[in-house]
């Protein structure tokens, strides 16, 4: 495609860090920070293309700032007056950090352990080569058409290059098995990016089994995938998008464990706890899995007598917290077979549930799913014989750093053990500092987008291994749709523009002004409200209304 790469700069010498070098470019070869450049070096007798990332750019020769003293006078005019040359006079000094050469056996970057010699010519790394080696695609060559690979997710392209010039395809295997975190302030494009990944995973070449925990109802438009030719397979495949609204989200009481019940009860005393734990255990040991609160209370009365004050107090609490909560049901349980399946993306619409119930249903579902995955890997009977991937919006609600959520335990278990059992989690959050550190640091692939809050930046720094790299300095300045992808799915972090969605975006924020307009027009069409009031005999002063 492209012949000899054009030389854009020349190495001047080593930089401050052992992996850094400095090079010089003239003004007409604009190179942005974050750009990938390459040079040739001989490693053990072989010529290798070494890649480096530009980390800094400073002007070392240009017009003096004094020429800018009057905004109405262009510095070029001052320069011309003084006979100073103005064309192509700028020289830039750039700093670059060596990433390494691509080792085709290890299918990752290897450090050449030597810096380029002064005078070494540098060129821009070719698009196709970067497409092959930046993501962790395991290619045994450093230059191929990665769109031909199976199981890749086209997430976007390098931000520093022209749109769609250098496309980044993430290995789905990597982020779906070693977990994914999408971290950014509200409005930066988390849900958008997650939806792009869902689209990619649901394509015919991957046919994933996905479960989206959607506390805000932001994923309603994923159904657009159905009937869209991009998602269809030659064998007639089409993704199955299933919506599960809160009416169908039921927790069978017997699925709760003692800890869950304790957590939903209001402040039980020690004695109550003791009574409940004995009673609950006894219920769990019986064959029937479909008992209700009455059965439990009967059992405790059998054990402690009908007049036991603690049992009485428990009864009141149990009826209020469980008996009167529609989420719990003696028999109904979300059938796992209905919510997961290959080629199926299920959206659990939890937006009408309160936070406690969201956590409860999540906890119970995760526990059940995890049990099935465990059974599968241990070759026991199971309802789920394939890996699954779950996405969580508001990840900090389900795995909070404060520890204050029922679901935290199972989230920790899955993030630390799930990779062995084919259970991957995708944690989305606008408050990384509020996510449990254990959970966050187990997310092997990270998509970090614009984030301002210093606490949240710190949290990213602590949990994201690559966060020390210069590229993360870009975080505060990113605009919606721009992201840094790092971790297991990448051989080196990259700053990307997330691609557009094939489905519509369902998480647009409410347009307040538009709503006001609509409401006003609505009112105009129903004039009854604005008709002049009939004051009748004139006695009414209007003040009466205040009484």
């Amino acid at each position, binding site marked *: 495609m492209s012949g000899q790469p054009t030389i854009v700069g020349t190495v001047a010498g080593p930089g401050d860090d052992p992996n850094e070098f400095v090079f010089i470019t003239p003004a007409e070869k604009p190179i942005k920070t974050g750009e990938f450049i390459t040079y040739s070096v001989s490693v053990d007798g072989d010529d290798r293309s070494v890649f480096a990332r530009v980390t800094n750019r400073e002007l070392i020769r240009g017009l*003096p700032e*004094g*020429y800018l*003293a*009057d905004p109405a*006078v262009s510095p070029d005019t*001052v320069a011309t*007056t*003084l*006979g100073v040359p103005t064309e192509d006079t700028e020289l830039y000094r750039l700093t670059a950090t060596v990433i390494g050469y691509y080792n085709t056996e290890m299918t990752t970057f290897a450090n050449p352990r030597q810096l380029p010699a002064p005078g070494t010519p540098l060129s821009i790394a070719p698009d196709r080569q970067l497409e092959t080696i930046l993501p962790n695609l395991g290619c045994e060559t450093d230059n191929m058409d990665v769109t031909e690979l199976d199981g890749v997710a086209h997430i976007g392209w390098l931000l520093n290059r022209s749109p769609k010039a250098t496309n980044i395809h993430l290995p789905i295997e990597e982020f779906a098995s070693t977990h994914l975190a999408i971290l950014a302030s509200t409005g930066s494009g988390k849900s958008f990016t997650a939806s792009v990944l869902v689209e990619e995973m649901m394509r015919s070449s991957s046919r994933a089994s996905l479960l989206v925990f959607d506390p805000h109802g932001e994923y309603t438009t994923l159904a657009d995938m159905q009937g869209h030719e991009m998602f269809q397979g030659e064998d007639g495949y089409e993704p199955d998008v299933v919506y599960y609204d809160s009416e169908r989200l039921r927790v069978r009481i017997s699925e709760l464990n003692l800890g869950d019940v304790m957590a939903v009860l209001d402040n039980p005393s020690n004695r109550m706890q003791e009574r409940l734990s004995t009673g609950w255990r006894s219920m769990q040991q019986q064959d029937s899995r479909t008992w209700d609160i009455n059965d439990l209370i009967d059992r405790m009365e059998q054990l402690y007598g009908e007049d036991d004050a603690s049992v009485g107090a428990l009864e009141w609490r149990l009826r209020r917290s469980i008996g009167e909560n529609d989420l719990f049901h003696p028999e109904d349980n979300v059938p796992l077979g209905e919510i997961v399946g290959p080629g199926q993306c299920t959206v659990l619409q939890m937006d009408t549930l309160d936070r406690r119930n969201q956590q409860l249903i999540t906890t119970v579902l995760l526990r059940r799913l995890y049990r099935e995955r465990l059974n599968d890997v241990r070759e026991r009977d199971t309802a789920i014989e394939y890996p699954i991937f779950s996405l969580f919006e508001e990840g900090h609600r389900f795995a909070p750093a404060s520890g204050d959520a029922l679901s935290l335990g199972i989230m920790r278990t899955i993030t630390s053990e799930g990779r062995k059992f084919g259970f991957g989690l995708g944690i989305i959050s606008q408050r990384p500092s509020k996510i449990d550190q254990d959970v966050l640091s187990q997310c092997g692939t990270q998509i970090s987008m614009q984030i301002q809050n210093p606490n949240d930046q710190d949290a990213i720094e602590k949990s994201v291994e690559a966060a020390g790299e210069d590229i993360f300095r870009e975080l505060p300045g990113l605009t919606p749709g721009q992201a840094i992808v790092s971790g297991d799915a990448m051989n080196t972090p990259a700053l990307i523009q997330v691609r557009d969605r094939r489905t519509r975006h369902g998480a647009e924020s409410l347009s307040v002004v538009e709503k006001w307009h609509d409401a006003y027009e609505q009112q105009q069409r129903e004039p009854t409200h604005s008709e002049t009031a009939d004051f009748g005999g004139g006695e009414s002063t209007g003040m009466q209304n205040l009484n």
Partner: protein
Amino acid sequence: MTELATEETTLNLNSCIRIGSIISSNSHLDYVVEVLKDRDCDRPPELHEREFGQPVFIKKDVNGTKHAIMGVIYDSKLVDPDQGRTGPRLAQDDQERFTPGYIEERTTLVGVALLGTAVITDDQSITDPTHQMPRWTLEIDDTVYHCPDEMILSFHTVDEQLQLAYLDRLVEIAGDLGAEIAMTVIDRLRRLLAEDDPNQRVLNVVEQNVQWQAHEQRGMI
């Protein structure tokens, strides 16, 4: 003065006042000129016509083309031969420049730094000004003329754009008085230009730069 910028006045280089003649040089761009006295001519230059910062020129025939070698008065020195035994050496030991030979009577010397050149037209005005260093050497006894305002303006204008490309060279040559000579030249140009001429603002920026640099060099900032 400002009307000069707009009004077409006829410049006649033949009627320019003579200021003096070259008696020596300190370098290729730095000449010593003895100022004409009453005795030497009918119309010696008046004090304001040979003041610090006054542009001057010397006529030179080069290869059949008449040129004006442009310069500016950037220094002066008084010489009184009676004060010394064998006639003065004008320069102090640490100052190489400005070193005339023997002089027999009380004389005013001025230093002239060369700025550039222009071509003298048949109708005795100038064209094609350049602020590049003049390549040609001047001679002892070459006459140095007072540069009229129209000529100053025309020497400093290329395509309606103000030119001061010699400025850094001039500052070098003038040494201790570098900033002052630059400022005086700028001031003179400012008075020659119309008040609303956009080049006024360019001059301001240039002046600021010169001033700033001078203060910096002199340790004020």
